[in-house]
């Protein structure tokens, strides 16, 4: 199914947390500042209801997204109040993809962990948590993934300050 079909199906199923969809559009000729948006369409989902939403995606006959391909986050700008969670799903049976975006407040980024739905998200969430400071409630193994266990700070945030030294090694 193409994106329209998937979106319609999600609406029909009353998928929990579905807030809307965003599709690429050309620049608005009326607004000089608007450059439009290109690339992929995605659905916007409420982060607190991401888990039941993913369950619907995984279990529904027509959607059947068996694979969680990617779960990551984005910090769009220093002054932006929000962090995005980006999830990419893939269906092996129906051969279609879906991109999901959730928006979290930067001040307190907490959402339930999706590990009960897909085992694959366990490692992706660990990496997200350490890089962005997002807390995945109920994660079975919240250790650091790529960074050393005692690393301070969340590197992929736009306001991240690189430390001056680490264990006596200068980082200048």
């Amino acid at each position: 199914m193409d994106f329209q079909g998937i979106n319609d199906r999600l609406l029909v199923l009353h998928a929990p947390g579905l807030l809307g969809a965003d599709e690429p559009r050309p620049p608005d000729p009326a607004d000089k500042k608007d450059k439009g948006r290109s690339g992929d369409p995605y659905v916007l989902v409420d982060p607190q209801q991401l888990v039941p939403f993913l369950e619907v995606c995984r279990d529904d006959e027509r959607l059947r997204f068996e694979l969680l391909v990617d779960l990551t986050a984005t910090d769009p700008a220093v002054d932006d109040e929000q962090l995005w969670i980006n999830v990419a799903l893939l269906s092996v049976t129906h051969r279609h993809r879906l991109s999901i975006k959730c928006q979290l407040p930067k001040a307190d980024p907490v959402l339930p962990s999706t590990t009960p739905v897909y085992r694959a998200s366990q490692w992706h969430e660990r990496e997200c948590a350490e890089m962005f400071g997002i807390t995945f409630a109920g994660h079975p193994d919240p250790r650091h993934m790529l960074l050393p266990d005692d690393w301070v700070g969340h590197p992929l945030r736009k306001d991240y300050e690189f430390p001056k030294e680490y264990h006596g090694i200068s980082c200048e």
Partner: protein
Amino acid sequence: MDERSTATEQLEARVREAQVAGGGEQEFMLDVRTQDMEVNFGPQHPATHGVMRVLMRTDGELCTGAQPHLGYLHRCAEKIGENVEWLQYLPYTDRYDYLAAMNNNLGYSMAVEAVLGIEIPRRAEMLRVICAELNRIGSHLIAFGTYGLDIGAFTPFFYAFREREWMQALFEKICGARLTYSYIRIGGVFNDAPPGWLEEVALFCDTFEQKWPEYYDLLIENQIFIKRTANVGIIPHDMALDFGLTGPMLRASGIDFDLRRDLPYSLYGEIWKDGAFRIPVGKGEKGHLGDCWDRTWVRMVEMMESIKIVRWCLAHIEEGPVLGDLPKTLRVPPGEAYVGIENPRGELGHYVVSGGDKVALRVRVRGPSFTNLAVLEDLLPGSLVGDAIAIIGSTDIVVGETDR
């Protein structure tokens, strides 16, 4: 040292007690519980295919728990993506899966092209596919050679590298580098093929086709190899999907899915329609479906299928431009795209967010080795140490991609 002597002294004291009590020695011997040993498998180890550490708990030779520790090769690729320009980021992409660098270039270029919305010249697409498939052969050759080395067969490694040398020489002729190419760029490819290059690729295909059955018989059909890898590290159908495995690991478990055929990109849709290649799916020939032997088998057969794809491209390639017209300082319009391609190890995904600037807002690299590696936590417990080596080898990870 102190811990050990205390434990020994304690043990000795208990034995003395049992002896003094008389007849108690029998019960004592039944009660002796040996401690599980915690062994550090890596980060420096010949069999971990890079700097990776697996903390294994073993009871003698039986592994009772495994915890992979990553991050030894973390080079902040994603952070760098937010600090350098679009075109400048290309050499960084080479370096995550350094054994299949062409595919990395391809993934990144395609993701940016999806946001840019530009068309690639046909000759460039042809050269892209030829290089990506040749690199797939090279990467699978290393998987075959080093897996033999892990299992204890020293010789297939040399044969694999002899073929790989030729492949690297071909790439050196076309782009000047042997390992990290930066050849496939946004908008096409960097350089046109020098005269005679395409003929040499055809010669490589012919020679490799003759050598392949020898390698297959030497290692894959070897009884000892089969005994070591069949029925070892079985990944059942549901587990493969739950863990998000892609690539040969998914196909070896019997799931018929390949991005080149099912979500085609570049020229693969056309090539598939022409019936030029097929997708090998594990059949559980030598043991249970989804074991290490199946994964190695899928990789071996994929090499021959890549040869067929390269031959199709050589037959259909035409003259033309190889690089689209792009400004030196590229400004990508605002937008975001996720493009996943079939890397030799699985689905390599690039999620690219642009704010309209000359520097990306976010470059997310979804490395297949990272996702594939998670399966170790559930596969290793219950296997012997020798099997652990076989399983880790069969996941065919490159730590550059696991850690980025």
